[in-house]
Structures are given as C-alpha cells and as structure tokens.
C-alpha cells in the first residue's frame, strides 16, 4: 500500500469533487491564458497595422520626395537655361531723373547724350545682348479730328554691339514715317493699319498695332528715334537706354552698376523685372510648394501613425484593463470555489483521516495525501486550461482571421513562458486555494473523530 494508491482510489471514489476542482483550475488557468493570448494577439495586430501604415506613409513620402526632386530639377534647369538665355533687363537713366515721373506720368525730363549708347556698345562692361536708346514724352496725337494723350517713344531699334558678333534683332526698328501703336490708342482713335496719325503736327502711317498688354505700352506710340528727337527738339539727346537680356545673374548687378556709372558718368541704373525671373520665381515657388507638400505629407504621415498607434494603445489598454479586472476576479472566484471544494473534501474525510492517523500515518503523510490530489488537479486543470485558453484566445482574438500564426504570438517570450509555466502555476494556484483545508486535515486530532 502506498499514498499514491490512496490518492488514486480516493479520486476514483469521489470523482465529482475531483472533476469540479479540475474544472475550477481549468477555468482559472484558461481565463488567464485566454486573456494573455487575446492581449498578445492585440499586440501582434498592432504591430501589423502600424507596419502597414508605416509602409503606406513611407510610400507617400517617397512619392513627394520624387515630386520635390523633379520640381527642384525643373527649377534649376529653368533658371540655368533662362538666365543664360535671357538674363534680366536694366534701364539706364540720367542721374537727376526722377523715376516716379516715368511711372506716374509716362514722361522723362532729364536727358543724356545719345553717344552714351555707342560708348556702352563699344565697351566690354557687360554681356548686354541688346541696347535700345529711347526718348519718351507725353504728347497729344490726332486722327480724324480726335485727340488722344499718349506716351511717345522714339526708338532706333538695336545698337550693334561691336565687341561681339551681330545678334538677331530683338526689336525691329520703326522706319521713319511709320508708327507702331498700342491697343488703347487704336481703340480710342479707331485706327486701322495704314491710317494716318498726326503727332506734333507731323503725319505718320500706322504700321503695326500691338496686342493689349495691360501696361503703359497700350497707350504708347513708337516712332523713329531721329524723327522723335527732331519733333521734340532733342537732337542727339536721349532719355533712357534699355539694356536687354544682360547675361548676368542677380548678385552681379552691383558690379555692373559700378562699372556702368564709371563708364557713363551721371547715370543711374534701374533694374527691370524680367519675365524670366518671374517664371523662375514661379518655378521656385513650385519647388517650395513641393517641399512644403513633402513636409506636410511627412507630418500627416507621422500624425496618422501616431493616431493609429494611440488608437491601438487605447484598445490594448482597454482590453488589458478589462482583463486586469476580469481575470483576477475569475481567478479569485475559482480559488474560493477550489477552497470550498477542498474544505468539503476534508470534512467528508474526517473519519478516514482520524483512523489513518490512529493506525500510524504521520501528519506529513496526511498532508501529502491532500497535496498530491491538489497536484493532480493542478496539472490536469493547468494543461487543459492552458490549451482551452489558447484556443479561445486564438479564436476570439481574431488572430486566425488576420492570419496571425501561433508562432507569431509566441515570438514574445511572455506568452511562451506562461504556457510553459501554466501547469506549475495551476498547481501553485490550487495549492494556495486548498492549502488551508489540507492543513486542517493534517492537524486534525484523530481522537476527536474516533470518539464519536
């Protein structure tokens, strides 16, 4: 005879108590394992969702980076090409000229010698492609008895630049006796091509009608420089020199300014905004916008990631919080129930314990008798509970539907440890739960029972 024999025979004899105890252990361990599995599949799900979102964000950012690169390259290309080709325009005026006079009234009063143009053309001061000497004056013009106040510009087209090969003409000169008119002039005076326009008492034939530009050009008429000088009594004098398409970029303007004023004393230089620059600017703006879009995309991506993470953490926290309350509650309930069952078992076996003690079993042997039973309920309940808990966690943690494999869940050591330790945990758990009744049994005075 052995204690083991006693234990197994007793279990067979009192199956219900044993099965109920195992059931309690199973529920407790199953609850714990199930909750851990659920929480773990939450974590894995979070990892997956975040990884997917991250890829998404990275793809979007990469797309933006490409756009930025393209915009940047387009901008650079454009600036390089256009600056090379066009450069910018400067306006050379006599020093004493008030620039606002031109801007406000369309007339210039200060003059400088026409020879300055040739001086400039012969110098190697700058890589000016075109030089346009002009005279400018507000005058009344007349056609068919109607008078109109216009800006008269005398221009001689282009001055050949001697130190370089002849360029293609940028602006056609106006032949003597002809006039080029702005669109407003045409409209106001009802002019057609080949009509006659009277300027300062002299008749000119309309050669060209310019398209509307929305600028002062629409109320300007252009005639030959020499004729204009004569009409205005400004022989060999000019008001301005337009230097078009200076082949220099931004920062060299200061240098040019210095060189020109050394060459042509008593002049000032006004930079005219070139259309090329505007376009370059718009491209720079496009690049800037792309960079901004990239930054926005990055920020938005980060925000999305953060929000997703926060949401997931929220869900995880909520589940963990729920499990943190439910699992201990269930385990406590199970522990109480196990204790109750163990107590019932001890009560039922009082007479048996009494006689076993009387015939010589030590209190240690009695304790062993009860703890062996506990060990068995713990191991069986632990293994079954662990398996059921895992199964439950996998099914309700949506791990299966998300294609999360069991091995993924076990990547994190905690769950693995829990599953390995579950039977031991269950044994300890049921030992704690039934400790008091077992101690009661071991400490029971045999005399008390045997006296009855």
């Amino acid at each position, binding site marked *: 005879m052995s*204690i083991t024999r*006693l234990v197994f*025979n007793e279990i067979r004899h009192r199956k219900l108590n044993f099965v109920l105890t195992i059931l309690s252990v199973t529920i407790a361990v199953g609850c714990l394992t199930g909750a851990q599995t659920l929480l773990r599949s939450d974590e894995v799900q979070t990892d997956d969702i975040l990884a997917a979102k991250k890829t998404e964000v990275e793809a979007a950012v990469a797309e933006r980076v490409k756009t930025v690169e393209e915009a940047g390259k387009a901008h650079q290309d454009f600036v390089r090409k256009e600056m090379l080709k066009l450069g910018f325009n400067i306006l050379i005026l006599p020093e004493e000229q008030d620039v606002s006079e031109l801007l406000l009234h369309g007339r210039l009063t200060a003059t400088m010698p026409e020879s300055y143009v040739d001086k400039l053309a012969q110098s190697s001061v700058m890589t000016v492609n075109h030089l346009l000497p002009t005279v400018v004056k507000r005058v009344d013009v007349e056609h068919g008895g109607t008078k109109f106040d216009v800006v008269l510009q005398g221009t001689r087209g282009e001055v050949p630049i001697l130190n370089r090969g002849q360029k293609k003409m940028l602006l056609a000169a106006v032949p003597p006796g002809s006039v080029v008119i702005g669109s407003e002039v045409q409209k106001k005076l009802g002019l057609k091509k080949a009509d006659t326009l009277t300027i300062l008492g002299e008749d000119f034939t309309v050669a060209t009608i310019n398209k509307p530009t929305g600028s002062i050009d629409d109320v300007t008429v252009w005639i030959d420089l020499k004729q204009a000088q004569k009409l205005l009594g400004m022989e060999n004098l000019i008001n301005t020199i337009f230097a078009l398409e200076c082949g220099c970029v931004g920062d060299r303007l200061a240098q040019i300014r210095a060189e020109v004023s050394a060459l042509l004393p008593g002049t000032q230089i006004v930079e005219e905004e070139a259309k090329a620059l505007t376009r370059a600017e718009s491209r720079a703006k496009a690049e800037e916008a792309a960079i901004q879009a990239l930054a926005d995309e990055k920020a938005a991506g980060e925000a999305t990631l953060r929000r997703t993470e926060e949401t997931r953490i929220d869900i995880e926290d909520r589940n963990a919080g729920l499990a943190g309350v439910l699992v201990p509650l269930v385990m406590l309930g199970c522990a109480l129930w196990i204790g109750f069952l163990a107590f019932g078992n001890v009560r039922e076996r009082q007479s*048996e314990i009494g*006689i076993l003690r*009387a*015939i*010589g*079993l030590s*209190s240690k042997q009695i304790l062993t008798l009860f703890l062996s039973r506990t060990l068995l309920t713990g191991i069986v309940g632990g293994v079954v509970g662990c398996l059921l808990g895992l199964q439950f966690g996998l099914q309700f943690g949506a791990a299966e539907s998300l294609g999360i494999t069991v091995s993924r869940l076990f990547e994190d050591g905690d769950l693995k440890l829990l599953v390995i330790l579950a039977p031991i945990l269950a044994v300890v758990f049921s030992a704690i739960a039934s400790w008091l009744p077992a101690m009661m049994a071991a400490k029971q005075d045999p005399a008390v029972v045997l006296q009855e």
Partner: protein
Amino acid sequence: MTEILDLQKVCKTYRGRSGEVRAVDGVSLSLDAGEFVAVRGPSGCGKSTLLLLSGGLLAPDSGDVTVAGEEPYLMSTDARSRFRAANIGFVFQQFHLVPYLSVLENVLAPSIANKTAAADETLTRARSLVVHFGLEDRIDHVPGELSSGERQRTALARALLNQPKLLLADEPTGNLDEENAELVLTHLGEFAASGGAVLLVTHDASAAARASRTVFLDSGKVVTDDAATAS
C-alpha cells in the same frame, strides 16, 4: 508476566464551551500480555476516553501512560504515530474503514505508516488475515458493499496486520448482531491467547463475560477491578 499497558493515576479533563468535564479521574490500570480486559460502566463514565489515553491518541493532563515499556506521550507526534503503528491496534464501533479502499487494501493500510516488513511479506500476511476472518470472497469489495460483521472483521484484520502488542476495542460489537458479535469476541480472545493484550470497552455484560478480567468505571474512576480484588 510482561506488562503491556500501564496507566498510573491518569487524569483527563475536557474543557469545552459548556464547562469542564472530568472524564478520567486518577485511573491506574495495568494489562499484561495475554490478558483480555473488559472495561464497563455507564454511558459517559469515561470508557472511550480511557481507551484513547491508552492508545497514544489523547494526552492525559496528569499521570503516566506506558505501552510496551515506552511512554508514547514523551515522544514527538510523528514518533508517536510510528509507535502506534508498530504496537497498537484499534477497533471501533463505527468500524472507521477507508471507504474507497477494498477489504484487502484496508487491511494493508497500516503498512503505509509501518514499513518494517517487506511489501510481499505484508501482502501475504494481509491475505492470510483476510482468509482467517472469512473475508476471502469479499477481498476486493469496498466497505460500502459489506455487512456490518464483515466490516468489523475487516477492521479487526487491519488492527492485527502489524502484529501489535496491544489491541484496543471500543464497543466493537455495538453495531453487530449476536452471531457476528460472538465471532468478533472470539477473535479478540484468540489474540489475547496468542500473547497480545486486549482492552475491550463495552457496556454489554455478555461481551464482558468473555474477558479474563473486568474493570468497572464510574464518573472517571475505577469502581472495581477483578485483578485488584483477586490479588
């Protein structure tokens, strides 16, 4: 003659919620090997208490208890358990069999505590006891499937497995019919004849008549003792 049990001025008082009960009050009693002593007296006079005191199951408040030359109440709890297993056999009115063990297993139960003999030797002895008490047809039955007589015979066989020197029986015939009571008493007499000492607690005069000596107890005190009067 070898003295198996010796009680000297043993006292036991129960202290319960409803006050104190002096169950055994200065009892001196001694049993030699081969003696079959019956203890009689009215209900509540302290018979069962005396038996527990003698069996090393209930420590006296005062007085000395010597069993087979040793004083169990001077031993540690576990040593006393082992001592009981080796020297004392118990039989009770309620049988106190382990409900989930078969007849043979119940008879073998004391061997869990007392492993002095080899397992197969113990098994052989258990089987022969089962046969001796006429239980061979019931050997694999559990107590729930046995008659009262069979249960008490199983308890007797269990009490004798470790070849004790002292057999303590508390109303062993109380729940039995005449025939079975007779049988049990015969076996007790047999044990005494073989050199053991039997202390039989009973209120039944006919049962006491089987004993070689009768002790009367009243209010925890020995009223008459055949041995004392004889000497």
